[in-house]
């Protein structure tokens, strides 16, 4: 249990450091939301100054941080200037969509990668393995931006998939099954894109972990005892190989979140990515800090999940 507590404390500390870091960085930034307002001749200088005072822009950095931290604890996460609403109300719906997309994509990627990696490791050195290595290398050299654009082109040209958004415009009038189907076709393309982008790295890691596991002496011994090949692969080698793979799962959250921003912008998915880009362009600092914090929370949660899984799966860590 001490292991898990330590991990949790570490995660919380990390989040606090990230929050101070990103807050300070953005508050030092030259120019703010109200500067753009000042250029508008229809907004008087008094109004701008009043707004600045109202949002506490004249206070010192630590005071503003304290205010912000208090508002995070209250569940508001600061105030969005351009949407004129607490940031949290903006974030939740967006975060749900991003989480939904990345979770499905992660599942899809791992479901594809595990059999491919195992198959490739089991047939090490044969033409199947080479073909697999070749295709993952090829996928690695294709920029993800380009891949998403090609998928979008596919959707536009064939008309098989709806383009943009998460649901159709007449979504509200559908019955339950049509709603489910509607959501499914809308996220097919972004989820597929994300899965394909992360796939090559996963396959390579799984393959190398499995190759290493299959080389260990106890596998040879088990093989000598006449244990069938499938059982050898899944019951003996896979648990041994799972340790680095679980850590990889934690790491892959970061990759997934970054790739998700691009896919969300390209395919107009109403997630955190487009919100972030808009917020940067309009200098809506609290929204930017909010998104950065939320993505760090996802990431830390992913790593914690990996730690817990490791704790459950690996007796060596439990004994420590």
């Amino acid at each position: 249990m001490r292991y898990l507590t330590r991990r949790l404390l570490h995660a919380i500390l990390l989040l606090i450091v990230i929050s101070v870091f990103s807050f300070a960085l953005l508050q030092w930034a030259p120019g703010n939301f109200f500067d753009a307002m000042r250029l508008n001749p229809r907004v008087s200088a008094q109004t701008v100054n009043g707004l600045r005072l109202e949002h506490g822009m004249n206070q010192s950095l630590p005071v503003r941080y304290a205010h912000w931290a208090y508002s995070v604890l209250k569940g508001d996460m600061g105030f969005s200037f351009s949407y004129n609403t607490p940031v949290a109300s903006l974030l939740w719906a967006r975060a749900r969509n991003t989480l939904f997309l990345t979770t499905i994509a992660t599942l899809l990627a791992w479901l594809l990668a595990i059999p491919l990696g195992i198959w490739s490791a089991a047939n090490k050195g044969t033409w199947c393995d080479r073909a697999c290595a070749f295709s993952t290398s090829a996928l690695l050299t294709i920029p993800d931006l380009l891949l998403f654009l090609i998928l979008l082109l596919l959707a536009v040209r064939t008309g098989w998939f709806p383009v943009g958004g998460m649901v159709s415009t007449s979504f509200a009038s559908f019955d339950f099954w049509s709603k489910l189907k509607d959501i499914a076709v809308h996220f097919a393309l972004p989820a597929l894109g994300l899965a394909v982008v992360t796939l090559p790295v996963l396959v390579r890691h799984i393959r190398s972990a499995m190759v290493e596991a299959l080389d260990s002496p106890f596998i040879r011994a088990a093989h000598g005892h006449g244990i069938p090949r499938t059982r050898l692969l899944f019951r003996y080698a896979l648990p041994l190989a799972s340790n680095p793979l679980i850590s990889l799962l934690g790491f892959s959250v970061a990759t997934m979140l970054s790739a998700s921003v691009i896919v969300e912008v390209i395919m107009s998915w109403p997630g955190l990515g487009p919100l972030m880009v808009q917020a940067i362009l309009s200098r809506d600092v609290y929204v930017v800090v909010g998104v950065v914090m939320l993505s760090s929370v996802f990431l830390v949660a992913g790593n914690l999940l990996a730690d817990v899984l490791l704790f459950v799966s690996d007796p060596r860590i439990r004994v420590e």
Partner: protein
Amino acid sequence: MCFCSSATRGFVWSDIVKHRHKLWGALLLLAGLHVVVLFAGFFAPYGSSTQDRNLPFAPPTGLHFVDASGKFRARPFVYGLKDDPQALGSFAVDSTQVYPVHFFVQGSSYKVGGVLPSRLHLFGVSAPGRIFILGSDAYGRDQFTRFLYGGQISLAAGLIAAALSVLLGVVIGGLAGFYGGWIDDLLMRGGELFLALPWLYLLFAVRAALPLHIAQWQVFLLLIVVIGLVGWARPARLIRGVVLSAKERNFVVAARAFGASDVYLLRRHVLPQTYGVVLTQMALLVPQYVLAEVTLTFLGLGVGEPMPSWGSLLASLQQYYVLSSYWWMFLPALLLIPVFLAYYMAADALQERLKTVPL
């Protein structure tokens, strides 16, 4: 394209190409590519902002050797374009207008390396004719020309940012590995922070802290600095590892016993041992940083028009009508693949050759 996570770990090209001269092949390819991009003015037929408003979204020009009467011509030629009577706003090949392709022609003026004025171009066709190898964009600008000029921006961004990252990595990783103790703890905990965050969000956060409306060249410099600063953690970690083992080697210990100073030890004995990691990291980081620049510019946070970059070439694809109607707008993006391939191959070959730590 993630420079803070493990996306390009183990790019094992050797599985596919068992080639003894892989390193030289990759380096030759890279050298050729950079020369073409560096001398974009000569290799490109037009200026980077030369427009032909009469030919927006012209399809790629085909090179021909056999003319309408079936006669073979040794000098390749291109046909002119006319408005397509069937489809409004698109062009059809007009086989009555024939423009032979000439080599080493005089054209629009440019400066070699920013100093030497010249008008010489590798190829071109005479005035009313146009040669668009990769088609033209919304303003009738030659995409091939813009790809070459854009490469100057994007590759420079990638190279300088990678150099910055690796330099920071050498300094920080070297200090952390050499001194150990609390310095090591502090620096590596800081590095973990950078490794932990999703790189694009981190890049966004830092980009958001910088002014939006400034001159293009300032944006370009800021972009380089931001990308370079954000990615120092991975090279620093690898270099720290090398330094940790390097400082324990016998000749280093001996030099220390002879009274060599820390600076001398680092400069003369320890840091030279990291060159394998440094080179490999450079080769890996450049394509990732080029892609970071492309992504930021694509999202409207990088260098903007009229400065061409590979990101702004792709940005036009955000409009649905461009994406769906003009397939040749994809061509510059497709050309990125061989560029990245060359870099990854070089990184892989370097790693094999120099037997550096696994990436």
